């Protein structure tokens, strides 16, 4: 490097060396000194036992919908469903919800904590406490309900409690069948107690 006589040229010559080094230092901080980037933290893995899932063939959130022979739309949904070990055609489901919408526009919603759907006999059994709500404002609670998936036929095994607009009813057994082409028959049996408060009009 030729010697310069005046301080300014010396300063420029020195800065031509020091400034690039400084830039190099700054650049390296981006890569060498920066905090480690742990890729694993970003994607949390689900702690589900994969082996159990594979062995059990469990379906989550299954739903089945169809139209019954008399034209009412029926849809059944559950949170989990797993095939029954003993009977190949039965599916055990938990937290079952079924909805029947009849031609006359009445909507019946059934929900229960567990149930079995047998597609070959096209029959669903809801048990473990069933609540039935109809759009006409009736709320029926019972323990177990068997409903057919191919036609509108619904029957409870045990006692049933029903509350509706201005009426309260309890009976030993309830059955809903289809009568005539679009009408329905609700039959309560084995002793019926009903309290009806007339709306004072």
């Amino acid at each position, binding site marked *: 490097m030729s010697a310069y006589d005046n301080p300014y040229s010396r300063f420029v010559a020195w800065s031509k060396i020091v400034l690039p080094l400084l830039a190099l230092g700054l650049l390296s901080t981006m890569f060498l000194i920066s905090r480690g980037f742990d890729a694993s933290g970003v994607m949390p893995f689900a702690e589900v036992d994969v082996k159990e899932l594979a062995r059990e063939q469990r379906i989550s959130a299954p739903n089945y919908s169809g139209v019954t022979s008399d034209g009412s739309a029926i849809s059944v949904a559950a949170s989990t469903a797993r095939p029954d070990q003993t009977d190949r055609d039965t599916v055990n489901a938990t937290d079952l919800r079924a909805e029947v919408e009849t031609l006359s526009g009445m909507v019946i919603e059934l929900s229960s904590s567990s149930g079995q759907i047998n597609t070959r006999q096209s029959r669903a059994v809801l048990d473990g406490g069933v609540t039935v709500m109809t759009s006409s404002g009736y709320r029926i609670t019972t323990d177990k309900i068997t409903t057919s998936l191919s036609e509108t036929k619904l029957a409870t095994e045990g006692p049933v409690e029903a509350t509706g*607009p201005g009426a309260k009813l309890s009976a030993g057994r309830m059955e809903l069948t289809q009568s*005539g082409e*679009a009408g329905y028959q609700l039959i309560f049996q084995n002793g019926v107690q009903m309290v009806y408060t007339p709306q004072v009009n």
Partner: protein
Amino acid sequence: QGAQVAFGGLKHDSSLPVEIAADQLKIDQNTGLATFTGNVLIGQGTLRLGAGSVVVEYTTQGGDVQNMRASGGVTFSNGAEAAEAQSAVYAPGSGQMVLSGEVVLTQGNNALAGERLVINLSDGTGTMEGRVRTIFQTGNN
């Protein structure tokens, strides 16, 4: 000819809750009828109506009870008065009950028999019609 009957004990409030007990209840959506069968007992306040079967007809829109047709041997009682007939029609709205078919009405120890008994529950009056026969207990002195 008819006989005026004071159904005194019949001050009756037809807005009280109606209790119905039976062996079976069938609600048919087509006809809008609810049929109670099998020793049916209807209670409203002090009024008791027992029958073989009762058909309850609802008003089409409100879903309120239009009338109840009881048949198969009806026994009706309200406090001291009691009546028996083959069939009865009770309209809770108007508070009118019509018993027909071999009606026997007992009030205390007086008895009155006829073909048809029309009772107006709200003001407690009744008229017995058709072949009215009556038995008065003359005092026992």
